[in-house]
């Protein structure tokens, strides 16, 4: 039965594997150059600076330009990373069930000496294995690439999905989703858009609705002193207070009452911030010192402190693992649902 399942999708699997190889090859090629240039730029004599150095001329400036030029490929690589997993899952899922039901070839298979359950388990099992064979190396390469380009945070929407093993879990989830919807709709032309739509809805809502709850966030209270408020750190194009954790996923950042029970929320922070900053504005603010003093007085008046709620970057792989398990569990449930529906199909 494994041979039959493989034979059925052989040519499509080869085409998808070829596509994945092209994407992997391009990513490795671009990523290797980026990695080399970034390493050189950050090492002596450049040490992160683009200024010309004695004996090397404009070497550092050239490196910086090369990195800028290479960065133009980043959006394409990210786009390919986001598309490859659901694409592979959807196409193999369609082939495994909806296509066979629609073309009525199940009448041939289901009148032989084999049960529908065994037929489905073989087809779904081989399909899932092929999804894994294509996506595991793809996920490894994208994970490596995300690290080499010096992404400031792996938690960003444009990075998280391709920076870990979840790429593979997304592909398997899409495969199971397409199996289920294929058993329900039984038409390739409708199953594909329905699967894409459901997947997109989940992909868009999951980060805000579920992902941030996968691990317990850290709550950092910082007293309003000149030492902490006077320093600033630059992350990307934004300026943050220095106590903000580097590369962390910041869930909440602002001021809140120290007496707040549990993890402060944006709602609580926004409510008190309005009052605190109105208070600050009542004081003269000619110098930075004036601002710090005004904040100190107002913080004391309202009983608030700076607070940061964040998930540190060392939690990344724990989150990837938990999210992956969630997607794979949902995929298993969908595959079970597909089997139940399949037993009722009268082709």
């Amino acid at each position: 039965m494994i041979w039959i399942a493989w034979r059925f999708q052989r040519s499509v699997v080869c085409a998808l594997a070829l596509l994945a190889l092209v994407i992997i090859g391009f990513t490795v090629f671009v990523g290797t150059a980026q990695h080399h240039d970034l390493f050189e730029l950050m090492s002596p004599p450049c040490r992160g600076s683009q200024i010309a150095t004695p004996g090397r001329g404009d070497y550092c400036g050239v490196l910086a330009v090369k990195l800028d030029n290479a960065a133009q490929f980043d959006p394409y690589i990210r786009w390919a990373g986001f598309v490859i997993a659901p694409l592979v899952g959807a196409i193999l899922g369609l082939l495994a069930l909806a296509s066979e039901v629609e073309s009525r070839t199940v009448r041939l298979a289901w009148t032989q000496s084999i049960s529908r359950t065994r037929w489905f388990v073989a087809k779904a099992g081989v399909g899932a294995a092929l999804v894994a064979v294509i996506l595991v190396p793809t996920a490894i390469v994208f994970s490596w690439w995300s690290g080499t380009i010096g992404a400031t945070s792996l938690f960003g929407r444009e990075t998280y999905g391709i920076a870990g093993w979840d790429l593979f879990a997304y592909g398997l989830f899409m495969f199971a989703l397409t199996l289920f919807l294929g058993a329900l709709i039984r038409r390739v032309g409708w199953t594909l858009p329905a699967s894409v739509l459901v997947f997109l809805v989940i992909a868009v809502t999951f980060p805000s609705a579920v992902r941030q709850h996968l691990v317990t966030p850290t709550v950092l209270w910082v007293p309003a002193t000149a030492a902490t408020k006077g320093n600033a750190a630059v992350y990307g194009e934004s300026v943050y207070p220095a106590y903000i954790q580097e590369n962390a996923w910041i869930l909440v950042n602002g001021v809140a009452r120290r007496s707040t029970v549990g993890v402060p929320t944006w709602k609580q922070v926004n409510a008190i911030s309005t009052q605190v900053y109105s208070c600050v504005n009542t004081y003269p603010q000619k110098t930075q010192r004036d601002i710090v003093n005004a904040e100190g007085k107002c913080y004391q008046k309202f009983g608030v402190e700076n607070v940061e709620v964040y998930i540190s970057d060392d939690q990344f792989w724990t989150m990837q693992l938990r999210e992956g398990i969630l997607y794979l569990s949902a995929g298993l449930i969908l595959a079970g649902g597909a089997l139940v529906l399949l037993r009722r199909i009268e082709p």
Partner: protein
Amino acid sequence: MTGDEFVIETEALTKRFRRRTALNDCSLVVPRGRVAALVGPNGSGKTTLLRLLAGLSKPTEGRISVFGEEMTTSNVELRARVGYLDQDRPLYPGWRVREILEFGRRINPAWDSEFAAQHLSLLDIDLESRVKNLSGGQRAQVALAVCFAKRPELVLLDEPAAALDPVARQDLLQNITEAFAEKEASVLMATHAIDDVAAICDYVIILSKSRIVLSEDLDYVLESHRLLSRGLDDGIPVPRGATVLEERRTTREITYLVRLAMPLERDGWRIERPTLNEIVIAYLRDRGRASSTSPEPVNEFGAL
């Protein structure tokens, strides 16, 4: 007959698709070792009945048993004993013929590779050809090879000769006769070709308007029907025990196609044997007839 002698038994079998009733209260038996024909107009329920028997779908009401066991969509052991040829000949279009046979070999324990290869070789079908490049008749032959090579004890054929040329059609009928007579397998064949029925079948089932209107031995069917003719003005009543299926009038004569339930007395009638074609058409035209148990055969229906 006892239950063991029937390969197929259905009892009050009904199949509905939403509002449409495809089969309605059908009860029939097919004795073991027979080549049975399933005859009826388009949409009469032949394909639905075959798919139910093949375990592809479930009845809405009633019972269906094959070899004395209930046929369900999950009864694999039973399906291994049943071969089914679908009217659409569903084969994987991108596969080579050799791969289709390999498919059959891998999932059928009783698969006869030699038979399949020999059957297709006799028909000059190249095993390396892709299914999508075969003609309709060749595809039908490949589907038949898969069906027969499974070595089933019961074969369900849905319009097996529909896409075949006259020679291939003749060969197919010969195959059915030879292949299944040897091992006492049973065949149920849905067909529109009454000539095929007369040539190879020994049992006939007529479906009309989703109901079974006749299910009998072919010989008995031929023996229990007669054409009775008399002059228009003779005024002789239809004999006792004869049920009129069809009436034909000319300017001078009236002819009845009747079904006999008891020996016939001549009583001035001119008696002829109808052809099977005439009998089938008479039943199909008489669509108001409800499904009923056929009368028990009698020894003699009257000499011609």
